[in-house]
């Protein structure tokens, strides 16, 4: 169905891809994310700085995708555009078949509330609100009644194993627990897509694995589509699919299990052609 699912294929997106052209026009309604020739430029004092050079990508429901890349490769920019926090300069982005590029601020806010769950590196919980209120916050903006908010937020907190801390403040629990709360918050409104920006960046390796197991479980058991950004190979190994970015280009899109050397932990050492390209830019 999709060429980019072939293991180890390196897409050179500077050359227009025939199979991507074929998808243009007739939007695959089944895909969660569908971006075409996506460009992003920033205006700076030195002139226009291009960050993303026309990306093409499609993510199907139930996929678990890790996006890797060095600092400045454009992965955070891509994430912000996928999360409807930022708008692309040109190109198209279809989220669940809806063209996002044409939407106004309020509609984007509605999409973020309805379709997307965010997990951030810095957890980004509201420090003054209880864990229950933090988890229930997205429901406030989707006009869910108070009773239902409490029920659904409590359910989500139990799901991440923190039901007994529901009345605590974020600063009273550990970083790993805070990230679980953030995941509960991201999932409380039953999103179609979970976006995680370096979710383990502030956690020790043990807690990182706990969090990643939770993601894996959510993906495999509940079928939630997950796209996460990481620079840790161990973390990326939890995903089924890996997308590597370098200098605003997708330099690798395929299995997270690199063909030569199946050892996930040593993946970065046994660098492939593509990962070498990515590393050389850092």
């Amino acid at each position, binding site marked *: 169905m999709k060429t980019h699912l072939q293991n180890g294929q390196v897409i050179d997106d500077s050359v227009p891809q025939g199979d991507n052209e074929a998808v243009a026009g007739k939007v695959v309604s089944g895909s969660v994310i569908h971006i075409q020739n996506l460009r992003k430029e920033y205006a700076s004092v030195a002139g226009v700085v291009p960050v993303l050079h026309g990306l093409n990508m499609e993510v199907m429901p139930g996929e678990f995708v890790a996006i890797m890349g060095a600092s400045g490769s454009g992965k955070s920019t891509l994430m912000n555009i996928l999360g409807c926090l930022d708008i692309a300069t040109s190109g198209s982005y279809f989220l669940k078949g809806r063209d996002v590029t044409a939407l106004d601020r309020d509609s984007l806010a509605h999409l973020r509330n309805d379709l997307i769950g*965010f997990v951030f590196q810095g957890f980004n919980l509201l420090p003054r609100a209880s864990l229950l209120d933090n988890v229930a916050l997205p429901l406030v903006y989707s006009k869910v009644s108070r009773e239902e908010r409490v029920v659904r937020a409590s359910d989500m907190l139990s799901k991440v194993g923190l039901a007994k801390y529901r009345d605590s403040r974020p600063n009273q629990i550990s970083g790993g627990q805070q990230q679980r709360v953030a995941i509960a*918050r991201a999932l409380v409104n039953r999103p179609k897509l979970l976006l995680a920006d370096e979710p383990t960046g502030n956690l020790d390796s043990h807690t990182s694995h706990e969090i990643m197991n939770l993601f894996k479980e959510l993906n495999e058991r509940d079928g939630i589509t997950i796209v996460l950004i990481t620079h840790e190979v161990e973390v990326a190994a939890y995903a089924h699919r890996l997308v590597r970015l370098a200098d605003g280009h997708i330099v690798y899109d395929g299995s997270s299990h690199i063909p030569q050397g199946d050892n996930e932990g040593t993946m970065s050492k046994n660098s492939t052609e593509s990962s070498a390209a990515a590393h050389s830019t850092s």
Partner: protein
Amino acid sequence: MISAMLNEAWNSMWANRLRTILTMLGMVIGVSAVIVMQAVGQGAQQQVRESIESMGSNLLMVLSGSSTSGGGVRFGAGGIPTLTIGDAESIGELPLIAGAAPTVNETAQVIYGARNWSTQITGTAPSYFTVRNWDIAEGAPFTDSDLRSVTRVSILGKTVVDNLFGDENPVGKTIRIKNSPYIVLGVLSAKGQSLMGRDQDDVILIPITTAQRKLASSQVVGSVRFIMVQVRSAEVMSKAEQSIVDLLRQRHRIREGANNDFTVSNLTAMANTAAETTAVMSLMLGIIASISLLVGGIGIMNIMLVSVTERTREIGIRMAIGARGRDIMLQFLLEAIIISIFGCLIGVILGIGGALAANGVTGIRVEITLSSILLAFTVAAAVGVFFGWYPARQAARLRPIDALRFQ
């Protein structure tokens, strides 16, 4: 939705208790200042209004002697006695005039039993009661027959009764004025202070003829110091004034071109001037107080702007999980509204307390009206919303990506 937002507003205000209280303080001071100033201003105006009412309406005063003339030795108004009871009677018969009361004044020592009191003795005619719009509280007034027979009768003011009789009923008793006995016919109703601040109830009224013949010390017999004239309506005041001038020039045989030997002054006009002065004063007090309200409002804006900057990241988080611009705006606006409304409520309470305290400590007349409280409250709430709106809009306009990156 609103309940959740109220809860959040409360949490954020509670987290910054000191700052919230200080912001509120600006509002509290503004509102209480407006209420105290309004109370004092209204009190002053009310006092002037009552003084004017107690003076009688549409009043002209004809004083003997001229204040407007050319060469030679001039006497001040009231300085030389040129008016007579006859003049007063003639004025009273003019078509535009409701009544005219000739008046002489004398200060004398009054004795009743073991007590004595120094007060103003006013000799006048029965028309005085209608011209001054002054009722007899007890007993009866003297009449024209008392004037004709020059009887020693008296009507006492409230203050005189309090000082000479205490709780005793003075009607029918005999007091001594300059060692002559006078029967007390009645007691005047209380009038309070005059525009000049004099106690109008500290007076004894006796028939003018009695005053002229039995009490007068230096005055030319038969003369009166001034005539109080009541005009039928406010519209004809100047016409009535002219008719009095014409009549008196004729009666006093003043030649064409010669100066008047009397002065007519419009008491009502003077009173109105006094009323306007007080109104301007209370307006100025109100303006000064409003400035403090404005300063309070700017304080709210200042703090809300700081709060928006401080919570930019929080705004970013909220936007990331689906808050629209108007949700963010509502949240900050709600905080500004809560601060200003609570500030208003406390300000109203302090303002009323302050006005009552001002009354208790200095004895200044204060008038706390519901309308002034409502006005202060409404203006303050509006100021809060107005100054809260700008920071709230700043927050709502943030781009989610910028807000999230903010450190």
